[in-house]
Structures are given as structure tokens and as C-alpha cells.
């Protein structure tokens, strides 16, 4: 008699657990048993649910591509970090209204509560998202040393396949290729001797121009030479290095670009961001007076990274730099027209590039 009660309790517990597990299994069945598979950026074979309606994008670089592929209606939550002014127009203005899941998807509880069926992730976040949610997790960022354009294409392929928007993905790749090919075909044939030496000043927030990037693909694609590329062994991608003022003098760049990613009057938290280094500051810097770029006033603003390359800006940047470096070769290239075309392809609005160029004080022909 003594054993009957615990025995009954054990049966009850087993019954309840079985019920719970089968309920959970049902959820997963709905989501995962009928699925297509894809190979993600981490080399994992991921099961994509039959219906993908609630997508989480913890990185704005993924959100941009989802918008460009017409997948906005599937978004349930995004990171608002690095959501650029032109992106607020994307998806008929809904991107800014979507729940903010924190920088790089830090708010895991909010993500779980949004009941996502698909999460795009960086390779390092796969474990967190897989263990804390029921969603399929697809890695989009490659750790390989891919060039900027290769990375674009692979990301477009993965996001397109995961959202079952393969046709739109092909169309976007064709569009990018049609915009860039006329320029890259010309610049790829320019010998090193005819390429200008270019210095890219990144993060001028500290009041100087000593932070640069060794791999800045738009410079090379536009037919220039990034003078800092000799330090590639120490720094890849957007990590950046510090150099001394003497190095800049020694390199004697013919062009200097200052990074800007948002206009002075616009800031995500509503405050005004100061911009310590302006074109005039650089031209006035005493130590740069012997540098060709300053002597010839070839100092310009350019757009730069914000949560890796903003795709639309990087594409226009190649055209912008190509025309600055080789005005004779690209006399007929209308950067503003092409820029507006690219931005419209991404965000569906007219004249977005013109607005950005005005606000960031980019050079306009």
C-alpha cells in the first residue's frame, strides 16, 4: 500500500511529460518536418520550415537584403542599430516600426516572445539562438576572406533561399552586376602605375585621421590603390589599424577620403553628432601640406561601414570613387542617377541617394 501512491505519482509525471513532449514535437513538426534544406554560411545543413512568416534579423546588413528582396512582410523583429536614414523609408516605412531586438539581437527574451520561425544569425550566435528558441537558425556571415562583392552575392543567395525568394535574389544579383560591370570592366584594366594612391580616414571621431582600413574594396574596384593595403597581414576587413602621421606623409596619397555614415543633424537617439574632422580640417592640417591630396584639394567625404558594408552605399561608392579617380574614363557616368537607381532598387523610393549625398556633403558633379 505504501508503494501505491508514489507509483501512481510516477505514472502521472510520465504521462504529463509525454504530453508536453508530444505537444512540443507537434510544434516542431509543424515547423520543421516538412522543410527544405539549405547549406548556410557556417556549412550547416539547415531545415527551413514550410512556411516562413516570422523572421528575426539581428543585423542591419541582413535587413537591407531582406528589404531589397521584397521580404519585409516576413520580418517580425530587427536590430535598429545602424538603421540608416534611407532605410527608414524601406518597406514603405515599416522598418523603423518593427520591434527592436537590441544590438546584434541582444534581447533574446524579446526574440523568443516574437515566436520566430527563422532567425538569420552570425556564426558566433548560432548556439544562443538555437538553444533559446524553436526557430530555424541560418548563419549568413562568412568567416572566409571573401571580397566585398563575393560576400554580397553569397548573402543574397542564402537569404533568398531561406525566404524562398530565389527569383528575386537572382534578379538583385543581375541588377548589381549590370550597375557595376560597365565600371569594373574598365577599372580592372588600369595598370597600377595609372591608379591613384588613396588614403581612407576611418573613424575621424577622435579628431584625427590616423585610423584607416587595410582592405577597402571600393577603392580597388574603382581603380585606385589603398595605400594602407601593405598592412593587410595585420588587419582584415573593417577592423582598421592606426598609422602614424609620418606614414601618411610617406605614402603621399593623391586622394584622401573621410568616412561619414550619417548626417550631422541625424542621430538615432535624436541628438546631434559632432563631426570633428571635416574636409577643411584636413586641408588645414599643417602636417599634410606637402601631401598631393591636400595640395590638389582632392579630399572628399565618403560613406563607410556601419554594421559591415551598407550594400546600397558600397555599390554607389564604387561609381563615385571611379569618377573621382578617372574623370576622363567616366565622363558620361552619372553617379547621382545611378545612385538613385540603386537606392530605389533597395528601398523603393525615388531620390534617396540625392538626399543622402546632400546630407553627407558628398561630392556632386
Amino acid at each position, binding site marked *: 500500500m505504501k508503494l501505491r501512491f508514489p507509483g501512481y505519482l510516477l505514472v502521472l509525471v510520465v504521462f504529463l511529460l509525454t504530453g508536453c513532449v508530444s505537444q512540443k514535437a507537434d510544434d516542431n513538426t509543424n515547423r520543421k518536418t516538412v522543410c527544405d534544406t539549405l547549406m548556410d554560411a557556417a556549412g550547416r545543413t539547415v531545415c527551413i520550415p514550410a512556411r516562413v512568416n516570422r523572421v528575426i534579423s539581428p543585423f542591419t546588413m541582413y535587413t537591407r537584403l531582406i528589404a531589397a528582396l521584397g521580404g519585409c512582410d516576413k520580418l517580425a523583429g530587427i536590430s535598429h542599430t545602424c538603421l540608416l536614414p534611407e532605410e527608414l523609408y524601406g518597406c514603405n516605412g515599416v522598418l523603423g516600426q518593427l520591434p527592436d531586438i537590441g544590438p546584434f539581437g541582444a534581447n533574446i527574451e524579446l526574440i523568443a516572445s516574437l515566436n520566430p520561425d527563422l532567425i538569420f544569425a552570425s556564426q558566433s550566435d548560432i548556439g544562443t539562438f538555437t538553444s533559446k528558441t524553436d526557430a530555424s537558425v541560418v548563419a549568413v556571415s562568412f568567416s572566409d576572406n571573401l571580397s566585398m562583392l563575393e560576400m554580397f552575392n553569397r548573402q543574397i543567395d542564402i537569404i533568398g533561399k531561406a525566404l524562398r525568394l530565389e527569383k528575386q535574389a537572382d534578379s538583385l544579383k543581375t541588377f548589381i552586376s549590370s550597375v557595376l560591370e560597365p565600371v569594373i570592366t574598365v577599372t580592372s584594366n588600369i595598370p597600377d602605375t595609372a591608379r591613384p594612391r588613396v588614403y581612407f580616414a576611418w573613424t575621424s571621431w577622435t579628431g584625427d585621421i590616423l*585610423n584607416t582600413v587595410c582592405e577597402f574594396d571600393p577603392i580597388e574596384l574603382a581603380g585606385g590603390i589603398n595605400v594602407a593595403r601593405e598592412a593587410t597581414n595585420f588587419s582584415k576587413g573593417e577592423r582598421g589599424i592606426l598609422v*602614424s602621421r*609620418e*606614414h601618411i606623409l610617406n605614402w603621399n596619397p593623391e586622394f584622401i577620403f573621410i568616412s561619414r555614415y550619417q548626417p550631422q543633424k541625424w542621430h538615432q537617439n535624436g541628438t546631434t553628432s559632432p563631426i570633428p574632422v571635416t574636409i577643411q580640417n584636413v586641408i588645414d592640417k599643417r*602636417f599634410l*601640406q606637402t601631401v598631393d591630396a591636400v595640395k590638389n584639394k582632392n579630399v572628399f567625404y565618403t560613406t563607410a561601414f556601419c554594421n559591415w558594408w551598407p550594400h546600397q552605399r558600397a555599390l554607389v561608392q564604387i561609381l563615385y570613387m571611379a569618377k573621382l579617380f578617372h574623370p576622363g574614363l567616366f565622363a558620361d557616368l552619372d553617379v547621382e542617377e545611378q545612385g538613385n537607381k540603386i537606392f530605389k532598387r533597395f528601398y523603393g523610393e525615388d531620390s534617396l541617394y540625392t538626399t543622402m549625398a546632400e546630407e553627407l556633403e558628398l561630392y556632386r558633379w
Partner: protein
Amino acid sequence: MKSRIIQLKYRKAIARKSVFIFLLLIVGFILGITGLGIGPIKYSFSDIVGVLTNSFLNTGSEVAPTAQMVIFNIRLPRIILALLCGFGLAITGMQMQIILRNPLASPFTLGVSSGAAFGAGLAIISGITVIGGKYMLVGNAFVFSLLPCLVVFFLSRIGSCGHGMLILAGIAMNFIFSSFSTLLSYFSNSEELKALSLWTMGNLGRASWDDIVSLSIILLITVPLLFMQNQKLNVLNAGDESAKGLGVNVERTRIVVLVLTSLVSASIICFTGMIGFVGLVSPHIVRLLIGNDARYLMPASGLFGAVFLLGSDVMALKIIEPAVLPAGIITSFTGCPILLYLIIKKQKDRVW
């Protein structure tokens, strides 16, 4: 006879300390001259001499404009700033260690560095600045680096001014301002985060003659005042009660030293960013070599810090050329092993 032996020993010890200080002066001078010749652009010794004589003695000799710019406006300010900052950080570290009776005390114990980092972060990430223009970051860093110190001083006036309480208050301020900085970083994007982290690593690459003039004025005012405290610090080494018994106003001395050291370290940090370990390690190394007499320890620590920071900066320029490592990284990498070696070798001396 016995007193004569003691007198001889004392003279010998003083001579040894003086020779050590003299040697540091020579090493600093040699390192400075060597630093003028190191860089991506190669200049001969005569080029360097030509630029220097032309700049200081106005000889009117023909000098290439690039050589003039590189040697006089880039390398020389960098070398002088390294010497001034190293000197300032080391003497403030040494005085803080004595006044707080804590071997872990450094110029940053009262929260100077975390306050400065928060000020810089506020300017970079939120755009809130105390002054505008090119001194935006410097202004913010300076003002906010003094804020935690002011809070600590205020707290110390409420209760008794014990060294334990000051350290605890400093640790609390460090944590508060570090949390504010982390909060700012959380809301920053990659570009702002990079700028902030570069600033906090400390870098002498932005050195200019204007910075040197400003820093020199502050050091010229504060360093003699700090030197004047050395006798009292020697008495304080025997403990607060003994010092009081010998007529030293312990609380007043403590406040004076803390105000002056905070002012010096805040002035340095706002121009260079955070350069760690110079202030912490230099006095310990020198103490292990020449002992605890503040009258000699202070100039020796200062000179050692100057040489140490300059040497680290020269290494930082060359080690992975053309990339430049922040000098703060080299000071930590090189300073700590030296300190550990000396601690093991001179364990029996037990200076702390």
C-alpha cells in the same frame, strides 16, 4: 667610528641613487635622439641636426619642407609628449601609492581614467560636449576625469579621511563611470565603438606643440608643489599615527597630494587617452632598485616613467609597421614582466 661608517654608507647610498638618476637622464637623452631617427621616412643624422638647428637657432639653412615637418612637427612633439606623460604618470603613481598606502594605487585609482573614458564616450557616441571644436574630446575627457575625484574628495570631507575609505570610494566611482561607458558602448555602432576603444587604448600619435605647451604649463605648476610634499611623504611612510606625532597634518597632506595628482593625470589622459601601467609599475621598479626615500624616488620614478613610455612608443611604431600599436599595450607587455622579475629577485627586501 660607528657613526662614520653609517655616514659613509649613507653617502654611498645617496651616490648610488644620484648615479641612477643621472643614468636615467642619459638613457632618456639617447632614446630621444634615437627616436628622432626612427620612422618610415629615412633621414641622415645631418638632416636631423640641420632641422633642429634651423628650428631652434634659426640658422636659415636649407631644409626640405617634408623633413622639417616630419622631424620638427611629428617626431619631436611625439618624443617630448612621451617624456612629459611618462614623467607625470610615474610621479603621480608614486605619490598615490605612498599617500594611500597601497601598492596597487596608480593615477587612475580615484576613477580618473573611467571618468575620462566616459567623457570621451559621451562626445563620440552622444555628441554631448563641454566645449566644441577640435578640443571637444580633450575638454570632455578633462572635465569628466575630474568628476570622480571631486566626488571622492567630497566623501572624504564627510567622514574621516582614511586611505582605505578613499580607495573604496575611488573603486566605487570607477565602477559607476565604467558602467556609464558600457551603457554608451551598448548603444554605439561599430564606428563609434572603434573610435572609443582606440581612444581608451592611449596613443601619442596626435602629439602637437600646442598639447606640449598646455601640458608643460600644468606640470610646471604642479610638479614643484608635489616635490614639496616629499618630506611629509617620507614621514607618512612610517604610518599615519607616527606622522601625526611628528607634526604632519596627514589629512591635509593627503588631500593636497590627491588634488595635485588628479590634476596631473587628468591633464595627461585628456591628451593621450589612457596609458596604463606606467604610473603603477614605474615607481615599484624604481623602489626595488633605489629604495623608498621619496626625495629620490620621485625624480627617479618620473625619469624611469619617461624613458619607459618613450621606449614603448618607439617599439609601438616599429613592431608591426606600418600599423602603429597603441603605446599603452606595449607598456603593459613590457612593464609587467620587468616588475615580476624584480619582485622575485628582490623578494627579501620587502619594500611593501
